[in-house]
């Protein structure tokens, strides 16, 4: 413990230099800007800044990139809250409650919660990273495919609470997403599946354009269908709430932060799954679960905190073992390798100043996110001041160019538009869109781990490994609990009426 404190103070001493502070601020600002644009993922934001680090000392290069990584994670929520267009896949969960809050005039509240939850979630993730990097990374590595499969099933069970009254439709939607996810090359044997001769489908459906389509275009088509000339948004409360307000959601932030960090540690899991699971957990803990999906501050806090914390978790396997757990971590690994550094257990011994300098920069990045977020929030929310006649067409063009930017091809745009129509139809007929995203996000990991488990250990691997069994049991309970409690409530009401 003493070692950690000594090394951390050395790391902070590096950070308190004008150049490091400037680069951290620049990284955060660029990250928030890129993250807020649909189609620019955190990994793209970091990759775009990567060439700038080649001539910098390794620690300063990492300060810039980590700032961008953390900033982009927060930036995704800005467009999600304001215009229901998640800048990053994980911000899709923030949109569930953030956008309804904006629509009902509570935009300041939504922006404030997403900002503070993101900052404190990020701090939780960083603290866990500093204290438990090595032991946690080793635990994550011992996970078998059957446990990964159980984790994805656990993630899929969040659909049980996501649908609310329409839980049957939510189940249909999630299976629809899982089915769509099987389009493309089979991950084990390379069989072409459902491509109908189109080679662009070999890589499967692009996730980001699909999300932009489902959420942004789907909502736009619906709004245009019901548009009445001269209507404006409800009067918006731009002002950020007082600090005391955030204390009402501190438990949600802490719980989701811890959960987000843990899930983020597992390679391939990532912030999106973390956000979905944390959202579900917080809904179960909440005294007002019926508010979730309609503008619940707890929902925004859970999604943002876990998403931000998972960034710290994703760095655990990277720094402790040299294994990148996410696309962004892979870009960061590339940056370290460019500078002749090999992440892994030895780096903690050989380059403590670099490692702890990176930890210190993550704390500083969180502080800058708070600063930029507070100063920028008033500016960001002015977007909703625009007339609908201007805002709607602009969201269309943003969505299209954002989708195009993902692969620089019209294929992504077509995916976006097709999912836009699906999102509109779903919205019209009461089918929630979020489970489709859940199915697409978790489908790949579920299939890969399921088949790997079958190949390695056969069907036995699902019931002979205790951790798999426990996780699957929790998943079954998670699905059954709301249904059983609803039934019991109905029966109780009936007996009371009788």
């Amino acid at each position, binding site marked *: 413990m003493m070692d950690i404190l000594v090394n951390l103070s050395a790391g902070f001493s590096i950070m308190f230099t004008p150049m490091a502070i400037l680069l951290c601020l620049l990284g955060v600002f660029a990250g928030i800007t890129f993250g807020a644009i649909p189609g620019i993922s955190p990994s793209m934001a970091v990759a775009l800044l990567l060439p700038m680090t080649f001539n910098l000392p390794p620690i300063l290069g990492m300060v810039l990139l980590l700032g961008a990584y953390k900033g982009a994670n927060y930036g995704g929520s800005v467009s999600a809250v304001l215009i229901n267009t998640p800048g990053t896949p994980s911000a899709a969960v923030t949109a569930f409650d953030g956008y309804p809050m904006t629509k009902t005039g509570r935009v300041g509240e939504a922006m404030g919660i997403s900002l503070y939850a993101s900052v404190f979630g990020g701090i939780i993730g960083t603290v866990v990273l500093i204290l438990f990097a090595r032991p946690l990374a080793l635990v994550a590595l011992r996970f078998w495919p059957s446990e990964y499969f159980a984790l994805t099933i656990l993630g899929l069970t969040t659909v049980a609470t996501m649908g609310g009254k329409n839980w049957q439709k939510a189940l249909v939607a999630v299976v629809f997403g899982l089915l769509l996810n099987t389009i493309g090359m089979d991950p084990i044997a390379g069989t072409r599946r459902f491509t109908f001769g189109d080679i662009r489908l070999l890589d499967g459906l692009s996730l980001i354009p699909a999300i932009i389509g489902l959420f942004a275009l789907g909502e736009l088509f619906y709004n*245009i269908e019901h548009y009445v000339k001269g209507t404006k948004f409800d009067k918006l409360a731009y002002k950020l709430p007082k600090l005391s307000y955030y204390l009402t959601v501190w438990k949600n932030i802490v719980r989701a932060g811890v959960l987000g960090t843990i899930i983020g540690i597992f390679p391939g899991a990532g912030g999106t799954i973390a956000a979905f699971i944390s959202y579900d957990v917080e809904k179960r803990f909440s005294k007002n679960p019926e508010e979730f999906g309609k503008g619940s501050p707890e929902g925004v806090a859970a999604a943002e905190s876990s998403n931000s914390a998972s960034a710290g978790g994703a760095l655990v396997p990277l720094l402790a073992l040299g294994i990148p757990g996410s696309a962004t971590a892979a870009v960061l690994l590339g940056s370290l390798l460019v500078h002749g550094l090999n992440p892994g257990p030895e780096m903690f011994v050989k380059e403590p100043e670099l490692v702890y300098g990176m930890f210190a920069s993550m704390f500083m990045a969180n502080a800058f996110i708070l600063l930029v977020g507070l100063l920028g929030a008033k500016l960001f929310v002015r977007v909703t001041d625009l007339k609908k006649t201007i805002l709607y067409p602009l969201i269309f*063009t943003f969505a299209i160019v954002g989708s*195009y930017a993902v692969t620089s091809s019209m294929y992504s745009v077509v995916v976006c538009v097709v999912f836009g129509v699906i999102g509109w139809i779903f919205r019209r007929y009461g089918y929630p869109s979020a489970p489709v995203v859940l199915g697409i996000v978790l489908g790949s990991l579920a299939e890969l781990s399921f088949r790997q488990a079958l190949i390695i250990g056969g069907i036995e691997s699902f019931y002979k490994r205790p951790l798999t069994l426990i996780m699957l049991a929790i998943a079954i309970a998670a699905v059954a609990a709301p249904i059983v409690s609803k039934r019991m409530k109905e029966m109780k009401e009936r007996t009371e009426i009788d």
Partner: protein
Amino acid sequence: MQLVFLAIVLALGWLAIRPFKKLRPYTGQILVLVGIFWIGLLFYFITFSFRVPRFASVATTGATVPRFWFYVLIPITLLALIPMLKGHDAPDEKPGNVWRVGIVFGTLVLSLVSFRYIGYYLSSAIFLVVVMWVLDSRDKVQLIAIPVGWVIFSHFFFARLLYVRLPIGTLFAGLFG
């Protein structure tokens, strides 16, 4: 071709629902279910035509998971159908101005197709003007300033700063290329 089949299936579904007065308020919701089930069924049958590599594992093939999801879809579709059959679900909401959506969608598709010929910048500017017009915007300054502003912003931000190679179109490529 698959879309034509889907349309035929939906039309048949619609015809099947019409005689049942109780089901008519749920026409849209049921057709969504029919559409999803059809896609699942189509995928299921296609799995039988997969070429399985010789080295493929006996335990699983590329067909395993799609088939598994289809088996899951069957009971879930029935489960979703029950509240509608019982009349417990909320009926379809009344349609709004679907024509307006059709016009915007058509403009969007035309705009995307025209990327290849007149480029991103001009087609997105035209798209903005048309959609603003469809949404009853008649302010001439806005109708000019917004598309021009967007073109300038998208050029500097996406093309210059983020190096996104936006299509310039065969027309402009021919003129300036």
